[in-house]
């Protein structure tokens, strides 16, 4: 069967905007993603090296701010929802398939390295910037946070700044 076409971006935008508005109205906070990865990382380190997490400053500061298991976290539940929602959407639109995507002129090895390094950079950058495209840029824009909007511009400025050097990976 043929894949269905993607939704009109403006309609998708309005829907996403209304969802974000509802999220802020109900919970007093916006959407997010990288926070769940942070919680996941901390949970893994806690179970592997509990002594280490009691000593190292990053984990101590985290457990001062958060009580209970790091996985009992709003964003962790939300991201589990994202997995379910995206899966269902893919199912409905015939897009479920194990697939490895890369640019037309690049090798599999380079794409694997790129995905891994890109992920690492996001891991570091989202901690430093206190949020990613969802938590800092999008939610920050909605609540007109100065910091969130600065992060948003920095993300897009950075991407355009470096895009030229990595063009062979994509076009």
């Amino acid at each position, binding site marked *: 069967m043929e894949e269905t076409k993607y*939704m*009109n*971006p*403006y309609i*998708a*935008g*309005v829907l996403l*905007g*209304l*969802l974000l*508005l509802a999220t*802020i*109205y109900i*919970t*007093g*906070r916006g959407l*997010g*993603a990288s926070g769940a990865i942070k919680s996941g*990382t901390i949970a893994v*380190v806690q179970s592997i090296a509990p002594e280490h997490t009691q000593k*190292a*400053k*990053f*984990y101590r500061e985290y457990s001062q701010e958060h009580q209970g298991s790091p996985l009992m976290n709003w964003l962790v*539940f939300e991201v589990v*929802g*994202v997995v*379910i929602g*995206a899966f*269902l959407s893919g199912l409905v639109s015939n897009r479920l398939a*194990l697939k*490895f*995507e890369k640019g037309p002129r690049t090798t599999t090895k380079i794409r694997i390295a790129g*995905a*891994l390094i*890109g*992920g690492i*950079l*996001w891991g*570091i*950058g*989202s*901690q430093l910037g*206190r949020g*990613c495209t969802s938590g*800092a840029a999008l*939610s920050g824009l909605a609540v*007109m*946070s*100065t*910091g969130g909007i*600065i*992060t948003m511009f*920095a*993300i897009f400025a*950075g991407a355009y700044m*470096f895009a030229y050097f*990595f063009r062979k990976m*994509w*076009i």
Partner: protein
Amino acid sequence: MGPLVPDIVSPNLNYIVALIIGIFFGAILEQAGFSTSKKLVGLFYGYDFTVLRVFFTAGLVAMVGLLAFDHYGLIDMSLVYINPTFLWSAIIGGLIMGLGFVIGGFCPGTSVCAAAIGKIDAMIFIIGAFIGVLIFAEGYPLFEGLYKAANLGNPQIFQTLGISQGLFAFIMVIIALFAFYITNIIENKVNKIDQPAIKTTPYFTSVLVIGVILGFMSFGFSDRKADLLKLIEDKNYVMSAFGEHNCTDTTNSSAMICPDEFALCLLKIEECNRMQIFDFRSPEERKALPLPKSTPMTLDDLFAKEPNKLLTILHRENIFVANDELTERKMAIIATKLGYKRIKILKGGLEGFKKEILEYKPIDNPQTIAERDRNKFRLYAQTKIPEILKKYKPAENTKSDKPKRVLGGC
């Protein structure tokens, strides 16, 4: 009044809410096409601007929606998480993420979406993101200086720029419409499609209509607080808007209570449940002359969620007191405009109360019964009220904990 957490939606139910919101979030992102890196990076190479369209539209719909919610008093913005501003970490963190975007082809939210429908490159990206957080955590002593530098608090952009929030929203809508137009031209050029950038198809008309609506709405939803503060600057209006009471006849139907009535309430403070006193004085002034069973209030509290529960208790008169009657009137006008009922003010303010009751000079040779009664009552109140005030003094310092903002962000 929102946010609904933690009063209407309990913290445990909130996890279920998170799951449901996540399902919608994931489904919308996937339907928009955010589950493939090729579409995402198209933004940076000019062949596909879907990300820009979805992102900007969503941000502005939510932004203008929040302005509307705030305008109609549906949400207490002081409880909403405003991302903090740490200038340098925001810029450098953002640039690192931008670099990660063009190398990795995803951002965290979209990588989860893509992985959910089976994209292997997205799964590798997520592993990388875990490693990245681990590097940050283990190298935290190295990053900490930068991470915590230039803490500017939680400012909102219109405060930083010194403009109204409506104007900022309007500027953003204009920028977005302009960006949508330009990117259409670029996209067509890069993809070598020979088409005009704007056509009269439903697609383009809908964008324009939404844009125009958003643009005008952002001006309609003026900052309610700023409007009300402007209103009470007009002294003539303030003095005329809240009725008058001469305190000589006994049938008091106006929105004022007289010093004698107030004294009576204080004398029988244990039984005086029909009245609630809201004290608008400064903490020092409250300490000097504490009022028993009163709730300390400020102008800002009137707009907040927590203190307002008290104002809406049925069958109670809410007595606003301050040192002077003018302040009482101003606060009462704002409270009335915000929709609170049964607001009364103390005639003459507490200064007047002090002069009329606590420092009352009896009328020499009272002629009428009224004058004699007044002498009798006020002299009694004069000796009794200070005793009552003394008895209640320790209770004054128990100001309830302010509700905390929820923790948010990533």
